[in-house]
């Protein structure tokens, strides 16, 4: 076996298991995985106490590569499985890796209800605007009139604003960043994992091989540059005149508030019941 370089990321990967990974050249998923690992390392959490849960899709293949407690579940159901793990072992940090189709189409119901409960899960939604694993079908975040293999004449459906959806459902921490903004992403991951309540970080990602090719967005570097140029930090967005923010996406922590977390509420309920029962 080749010697393993001793960068932080390498200490967290399952080298002897399932490499090489399944992701295409130019895919952003590896960048996100790197940022998650550096965030975990920086926070110095015992990795035995972290569970990484995912559903089905390109991004959801991530848990197999990382040396944590890992759970690769059914399409759309990662948040429901994570809810079970978290409720039974509330001290564990539960990170959900999901994609736009997995989380907002088939798993939309679980997303909004976990947000409503404000259960302490950290959902990292890697949004590549398309179903990559099945070859490029339109997802709920495929932009209006973009091309997909199931929208060959342009997608006539409007797309979801995932962060607004989560906030509307009651998520107490919501942030958006892109795969280009690696350090910002890492910072948001730390904030989200530390946040006592439901947190969602939407990471815009590049899928040059499928989405990029179908929509003539160029290769990975061009798509990266586009994420740099077409997003504006929240603070700047509010100051800029409307014509300069037209068509641009906001990056930043869009909501960060503390309200009662579900597992804590359940523990309170147990205490209340047992006092009443005289135990």
């Amino acid at each position, binding site marked *: 076996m080749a010697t393993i370089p001793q960068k932080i990321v390498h200490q967290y990967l399952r080298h002897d298991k399932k490499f090489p990974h399944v992701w295409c050249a130019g895919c952003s998923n590896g960048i996100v995985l790197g940022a998650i690992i550096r965030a975990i390392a920086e926070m110095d959490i015992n990795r035995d106490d972290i569970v990484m849960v995912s559903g089905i899709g390109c991004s959801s293949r991530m848990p197999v590569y990382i040396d944590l407690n890992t759970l690769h579940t059914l399409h759309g159901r990662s948040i429901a*499985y994570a809810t*079970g793990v978290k409720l039974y072992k509330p001290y564990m940090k539960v990170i959900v890796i999901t994609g736009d189709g997995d989380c907002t189409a088939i798993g939309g119901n679980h997303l909004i209800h976990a947000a409503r409960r404000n259960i302490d899960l950290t959902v990292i939604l890697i949004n590549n605007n398309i179903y990559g694993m099945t070859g490029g079908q339109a997802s709920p975040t495929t932009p209006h009139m973009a091309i997909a293999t199931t929208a060959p004449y342009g997608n006539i459906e409007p797309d979801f604003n995932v962060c607004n959806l989560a906030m509307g459902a009651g998520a107490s921490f919501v942030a958006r960043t892109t795969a280009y903004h690696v350090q910002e992403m890492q910072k948001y991951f730390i904030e989200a994992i530390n946040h006592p309540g439901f947190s969602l970080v939407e990471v815009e990602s590049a899928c040059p091989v499928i989405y990029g090719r179908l929509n003539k967005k160029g290769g990975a570097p061009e798509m990266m540059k586009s994420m740099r140029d077409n997003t504006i930090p929240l603070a700047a967005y509010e100051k800029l005149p409307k014509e300069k923010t037209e068509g641009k996406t906001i990056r930043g922590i869009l909501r960060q508030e503390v309200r009662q977390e579900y597992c804590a509420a359940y523990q309170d309920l147990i205490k209340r019941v*047992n006092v009443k029962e005289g135990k």
Partner: protein
Amino acid sequence: MQSKKTKTLEPQTETKLAELQQTRERRTVLMQGNEAVAYGALDAGVNFFAGYPITPSTEIAEILSVELPKRNGVFVQMEDEIASICAITGASLAGAKSLTATSGPGFSLMQEGIGYAKITETPCVVVNVQRMGPSTGMPTSPAQGDIMQSKWGSHGDSPAIVLYPDSVKESYELTIRAVNLSEKYRTCVILLLDEVLGHMREAVCLPDLANVRVISRIKPTVPPHWYKHYDENQKYLSPLASYGEGYRFHVTGLTHDSHGFPTNKSTEAFEMMERLRKKISYNIRDLVQIESHKMEDATIAIFAAGIVSRAAKAAIVMARAEGIKVGLLRPLTIWPFPDDAVRKMLRNVETVIVPELNQGQFIGEIQRLTKDKSESNVISLQRCDGTLFTPNDILRKIKEVS
């Protein structure tokens, strides 16, 4: 119901529990089938319930929402049945003994999750209080329409363990057994109840907790780097670590190797499928439970499960009063199917009547085993209108064939 008549008939259950009934202090209470399931779950050590309201199983959730917090267990009402099966599977991987309860439409929604629990060999129990289908059907009417779904409902080959009680007391006992078997065999065990059984009240005497035999999953003793999540030891019953214990294993619904990592190798896929199959088929003796009632001298046998067997027993009393020698073979475990017992029955009697509250599900299994008998000896009696067989319905058939 013919409860007065049937109550006098000898109960056939797990011998240990039956013995215990005689030794402990008796306190009889009037209890519903759904209540019995809830208390059976608690006595079996279930400490995690996730569910969604659905008639006729809702009482199970309601009772556990009262009782679980008192025992530091978790009760959560999820957004749908899909989320419920997912949550109990996740909790089980974290170490919980988990259970959910539902009925037909919810059971259909859970099928993908049941398949996931089976391929990942995660212990959990699904209680399906059957109602009349298909679709929304008749929510408060009985039917035995989910016999085949409980085995074949999830896509792909996935051997099933399905238990089927016939009384309130047995609902309690088989709930405990379902939890025990799920822990022992690391799989999703299904408990089928009839709608009528879920809502029927009978006098039940529950055993002292100290006398209830509870089985829990085997924990690994090896250091983490030696741990295999699907270790092939004797009879395919391998230890199971929980999240948070330092083992850091991977669980996936993809076809996997013995460590749990996804594989596309046909040899490893074959090994995994064989493991799932053999886990059940090598342990048939432990899994199959049947009640053989007045079969010693019978020339006509009735094969019936659940609530139908109660009417059959009453019919047997009436038929025997008229000198017709009828017996009953009742499976307490319907999957794996009690092939040996059925073969023996087919050898020993002239006619088998198979009454069932569906359009013919058990009958096919019996016919599958009738190699050396002409098919006319196996007679189907079907009812699929939301009502039960009366003892007279069955008696009439007995007289017809005798």
